[in-house]
């Protein structure tokens, strides 16, 4: 059965086609049922595959299936080939598992929507594309999934088509992603040009042979990895392409949970880890990734501090956490990055779904400051979200603690790490705890906000069950990656075959540092998180006037934070606006209509003018005509004069 793992793609695709083609005329129950069933089937199938997979010896945990040759032109070949290895296995499980829960949640959340068939079709398509992305056996097929999830993201962000903002956000997401994709493509070209293949297996093997040692400086590998990383910044919303993700919250909340928190945005992380064989040989690029990760994490966390929109807070949090993951990758801790990806998928999905539950209750009121006091009416939501918050904030012993702690530790401990990363990570951890607790206090505590009373309740089991399951997962998922002082890091071992061609910097080996130091570092992180939480409690649970006063006193700073350091505005003004002006005023009106077409029409009118000259010869006067004849004769004489003698 395991060799048919790629059949996991079939149910979501079938679901997509079913809902897309005939869903419009079917009742909502069938539509949503089909959507859930497709993802569920895929998940179950993959569980079965996993059961078999886990039993294989480590060296056999690399199954390639070649379906057909997709593109072939001369020496260039792109197969439609699938790869199942621990990395894709774990990704697939997360995608379909979390995806299934979110499908189920959606049946309730999206109830009554007219375009339900579209929604589920897109969602299934997304699961298909995301699975394709992680299952792909070469860069080009990966790119198919890569673009495919971008497309689904576009469709789902723009799901509420009548909203202009949704359309804008969708378009922005796609176009910004395309910038990254373009770089990705260039990376792919360079890979082919350099190594002549795009298949992961043979490529990594070749690389390990031709480039046994990492080289610093601007090598070919550095160029490749840099280009791929630029692609990853698009998908994973890192600096400089982070601007689309906050806007992407225009989509339905479950979509935000699935695509813009749990799965799609982590594709960048996946890409880097998948290419670990390349990245591990380009230390300078790794450093850059770490720097970008840290900066993004800091920037997003700071921005999240002041957001009023509940989903925006979560969105910035996501960016920040992704930055964390990249920091891990940047210090060479690839499996740690995946570990955080794994845990993050649960708690961030949970948080978004919780937020969705709040929105359902409040009829899509997004402003945190108009909420409050929901803890009584939304009990399940409240406590599950606390679990999620705690996990995100890295409170022991929830999953987030382990993964985040490991990242911080690697940043300090890895030969590629640096204490600065660690310190920055600590700050982000504190900030995270602060803004998450701020969110919780604002939403669930204090006096009820405007427009809603104490009455009202949870939306139903379709909502609460996924919340509960995710809360459970968020709580315990850390067990797969216990730190050395607590036990076995199973994830590391599981993922080990993935990195067989990577250059081993000795990241996980430990550098003579003792467990105690690691323990100390973990304690520090925990302490900082608790500090952040406490501060939030002080500022938002008890007396909310301080933040307001702060904001009033430093409007510039507040605005800057609120506007994400105004990067987005700069982009839209200078890049987008600039291009529009360039296109409309310069290229179209001036160059195309003015110069190029002007030259054409100008030639035409020039000919008309010359025509006027030619017809002016034709005055109608016979004597003038005679003069012309004499002129002609004179010209002949003139020539003959020059010839004769």
């Amino acid at each position, binding site marked *: 059965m395991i060799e048919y793992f790629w059949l996991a793609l079939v149910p979501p695709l079938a679901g997509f086609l079913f809902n897309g083609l005939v869903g419009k005329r079917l009742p909502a129950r069938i539509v949503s049922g089909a959507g859930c069933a497709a993802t569920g089937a895929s998940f179950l199938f993959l569980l079965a595959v996993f059961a078999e997979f886990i039993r294989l010896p480590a060296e056999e945990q690399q199954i390639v299936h070649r379906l057909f040759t997709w593109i072939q032109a001369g020496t260039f070949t792109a197969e439609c080939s699938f790869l199942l290895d621990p990395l894709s296995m774990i990704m697939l499980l997360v995608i379909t598992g979390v995806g299934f829960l979110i499908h189920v949640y959606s049946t309730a959340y999206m109830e009554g929507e007219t375009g339900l068939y579209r929604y589920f079709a897109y969602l299934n398509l997304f699961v298909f594309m995301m699975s394709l992305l992680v299952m792909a056996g070469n860069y080009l097929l990966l790119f198919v999934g890569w673009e495919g999830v971008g497309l689904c993201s576009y469709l789902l962000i723009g799901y509420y088509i009548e909203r202009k903002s949704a359309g804008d956000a969708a378009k922005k997401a796609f176009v910004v992603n395309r910038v990254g994709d373009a770089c990705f493509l260039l990376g792919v070209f360079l890979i082919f040009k350099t190594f002549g293949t795009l298949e992961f297996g043979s490529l990594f093997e070749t690389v390990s042979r031709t480039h046994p040692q990492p080289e610093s400086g601007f090598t070919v590998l550095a160029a490749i990895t840099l280009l791929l990383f630029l692609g990853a910044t698009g998908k994973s919303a890192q600096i400089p392409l982070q601007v689309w993700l906050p806007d992407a919250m225009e989509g339905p909340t479950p979509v935000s949970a699935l695509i813009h928190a749990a799965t799609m945005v982590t594709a960048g992380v996946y890409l880097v880890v998948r290419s670990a064989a390349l990245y591990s040989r380009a230390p300078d690029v790794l450093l850059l990734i770490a720097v970008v990760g840290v900066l993004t994490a800091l920037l997003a966390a700071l921005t999240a501090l002041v957001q009023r929109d509940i989903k925006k807070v979560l969105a910035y949090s996501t960016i920040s956490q992704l930055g964390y993951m990249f920091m891990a990758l940047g210090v060479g801790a690839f499996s740690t990055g995946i570990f955080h990806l794994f845990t993050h998928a649960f708690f961030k999905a949970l948080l978004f779904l919780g937020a969705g539950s709040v929105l359902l209750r409040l009829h899509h009121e997004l402003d945190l400051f108009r909420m409050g006091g929901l803890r009584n009416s939304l009990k399940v939501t409240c406590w599950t979200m606390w679990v999620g918050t705690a996990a995100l904030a890295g409170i022991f012993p929830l999953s987030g603690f382990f993964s985040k702690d490991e990242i911080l530790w690697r940043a300090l401990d890895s030969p590629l790490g640096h204490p600065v990363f660690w310190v920055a990570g600590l700050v982000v951890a504190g900030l995270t705890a602060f803004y998450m607790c701020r969110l919780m206090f604002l939403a669930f505590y204090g006096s009820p906000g405007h427009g809603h009373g104490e009455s009202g309740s949870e939306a139903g089991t379709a909502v609460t069950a996924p919340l509960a399951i995710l809360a459970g997962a968020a709580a315990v998922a850390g067990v797969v990656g216990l730190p050395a002082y607590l036990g076995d890091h199973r994830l590391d071992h599981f993922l080990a075959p993935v990195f067989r061609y990577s250059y081993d910097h000795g990241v996980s080996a430990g550098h003579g540092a003792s467990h105690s130091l690691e323990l100390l570092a973990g304690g520090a992180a925990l302490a900082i998180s608790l500090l952040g939480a406490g501060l939030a409690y002080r500022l938002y649970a008890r007396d909310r006037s301080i933040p307001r006063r702060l904001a009033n006193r430093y409007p510039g700073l507040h605005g800057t934070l609120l506007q994400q350091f105004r990067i987005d505005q700069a982009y839209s003004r200078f890049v987008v606006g600039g291009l529009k002006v360039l296109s409309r005023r310069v290229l179209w009106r001036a160059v195309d209509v003015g110069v190029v077409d002007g030259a054409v029409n100008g030639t035409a009118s020039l000919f008309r003018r010359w025509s006027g000259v030619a*017809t002016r010869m034709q005055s109608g006067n016979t*004597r003038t005509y*005679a003069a012309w004849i004499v002129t002609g004769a004179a010209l002949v004489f003139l020539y003959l004069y020059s010839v004769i003698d």
Partner: protein
Amino acid sequence: MGMVPATHYLALGAVLFVIGVAGFIVRRNVITMFMSVELMLNAVNLTFLAYARTWNQVDAHIFVFFVMTVAAAEAAVGLALILGLDRHSQTLDIDTVNRLQG
């Protein structure tokens, strides 16, 4: 008795020809223009005859007959057309004949 060189006859022919050309361009009266053409034809005839003498041939004399015939034929048709012009516009001024132009 010295013979006048042929060149002098040729020169006279050229002068008359040029006078004819000038007359054609300068004059507005259609008949005068036509007379200028006749002048040009006579200049040609003189040239023919001058060359006939230098070549010692009579062929050129015959050419002159033909030219005269042609001149007569042209005169017949031309004067008929001039009569037509007068009938249409009661003028012989060529400068007024410019209905067709452009």
